[in-house]
């Protein structure tokens, strides 16, 4: 005979684990002039409206692979869209030849690396993967 409180605690735990979204952090090069990004600035950057940092330098946007959990969590948190929806958005703009989606990086380690190496790069990754080699300018959850 199972004890009811124990079962309830177990179930609650499962639900919390499943619904929990990892916190995503947006990072830039330590030398970047930018210290923080508002949510709106972040949206404009990633959705292609803004091509430049506030200081005028061209932005290199970095994306994670479409099947990564972090990418899914990032766009869900940023514009409340699925990865597929964001892909469709970019597909619509592709024919105009004027807009291009962020560059895809294979994993968060490589994102960290690319940001470290490029002053104008901006990327995102799971907060647990971040280290002190980059500057966190925003958090998305």
């Amino acid at each position, binding site marked *: 005979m199972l004890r009811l409180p124990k079962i309830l605690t177990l179930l609650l735990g499962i639900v919390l684990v499943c619904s929990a979204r990892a916190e995503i952090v947006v990072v830039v090069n330590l030398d970047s002039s930018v210290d923080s990004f508002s949510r709106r600035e972040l949206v404009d950057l990633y959705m292609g409206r803004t091509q430049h940092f506030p200081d005028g330098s061209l932005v290199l946007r970095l994306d994670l692979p479409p099947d990564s959990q972090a990418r899914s969590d990032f766009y869900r948190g940023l514009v409340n869209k699925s990865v597929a929806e964001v892909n469709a958005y970019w597909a619509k703009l592709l024919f105009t*030849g004027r807009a291009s989606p962020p560059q895809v990086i294979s994993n968060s380690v490589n994102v960290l690396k690319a940001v470290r190496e490029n002053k104008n790069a901006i990327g995102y990754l799971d907060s647990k993967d971040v280290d002190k080699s980059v500057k966190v300018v925003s958090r998305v959850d």
Partner: protein
Amino acid sequence: MSIDVRHSLTVRSGLTILAGSVVLTVALSTFFYQRIFDEQVTQADRQLQQLVATVESSAAVAAYLDNAELATDVVRGLTKNDIVVSAALQSATGMRIVSGDVGGFDEAQLHQFPLSAPFTPEESIGSLSLQPNRPLIEQRAREVAVVYIATLVAHSLVLTILTILLVHWRLARPLTALARDLHEIEPGSASRLPLPTHRRRDEVAQLVDDINALLAATQGTLEGERRLRQYVESVERRFRLIFDHASCGISLVDKNGLVLFSNPSFNRIMSQGRPAADMTNFLQLFDDPAQVNLLLLHAVTEDLPVSVDLLLSGELSGNARWLHALFSSVRNEDGDLLVECILYDISERARREREVQHEAERDALTQLYNRRAGERHLRQALVQVATDQQPCALMMIDLDRFKPINDTYGHEAGDRVLIAVSQRLSQSLRKQDVVVRWGGDEFVVLVFTGKNAEAVPLVADKLLQAVSQPIDLGGGRSGQVGASIGIVLIPEHGLQLDDLIAKADSTMYEVKEHGRHHFSIYREPASPAALNSGA
């Protein structure tokens, strides 16, 4: 029968249906035209909104990114719809992309749709402006409305025509035919209405049946009345025949004696021998109007028929005309009492009766009363004498020397003597006096002498004188007879005829015994008979 076409059932009902249909169609058309037009315009607006909704996300993205290519694509796509004249996409950051008839922008008709940022809906990032093709939209709305109205009108028209035709074929035509047929049928004839050709039992067929039943009833009634009229006429003819050809006079007289109605025999009887007589005054037609008037009143008041013989007026006594009259009261339709008079001319019968009476009463030879009639007349006269207290004398006359003449010259001579004596006796007396041939050569006379007692001998002498004149016996011979007369005085010597006769007879025999050709007046037996000698 002619029916004004304007008033025919088909035309009137048709016009009514047509008018109703026209009014209804016009009302419905007016109502629905505006409604459909408005609906079409509203629908076009909705179409515009739907168009915008279709391209909204792309337009939003184009405005978000200031992407001219995408914006151009969007506005071009919009202007490909014929209800959009021109479209413009404007971003908050200043991009403005226009497509279509740019010059035709009319701010008043412009439809503005705000665009919000694709990822931050609370942020407005521009707008989409559309210039709808208002003339096209309205023209289409009109077309749709007109098609609808045309359908409505056609529908109404077809229904109206159908209804009129139906009324005409199913109602007006059979009724018109029925009215025409009925108009041609003579009331009382054997003609009947033909049954409608379609066999169904509708109201018209029922009407035909009922009318035919009425026609049959009318025919029966009229035939019955005609037969009755013929019967009455024949009866009336027969009665008229009887009335006109009756030998008796028939008339209706009111209680004042005015002749209201009479048959030909009445006029014939009344006018016979006096053509100028007034046929309307009943009373004056008779000898005694007052008597007739009383009889009429009697008939009316007693309500009993009066049967009486009446003498007509204006006749000489020798040619007197007698009528037998039956008076009975009748009441006419107004309740007035009238007298029905039935009159027979009995003059001829009365004359014959008088002749028969004469033959029965008179002695064939002398034309004097025979003994039987004489006795009756004498008795009547005696009754009259008793009531009137009028003295008279009865004389028994026996001829003297009659037998020798009869024996010598034969019966013919004797008859001549009797005829001559009878004539002389009658001529010597007055009319009211009675002369009777008592038998053989015996005569009895009753003489009304009056109060004058001297008259009796004078009369007796006169008679003796008359008898004793010579008599022509025929063959150139002449003879002479005398008479013995016995006289009784009435009422002095009695009132009973037999007694008087016996007394006169015995007195006459006394005369004969005392020398003949005398007269003697009876004396009572107590005293000796007195003899008076005559001339």
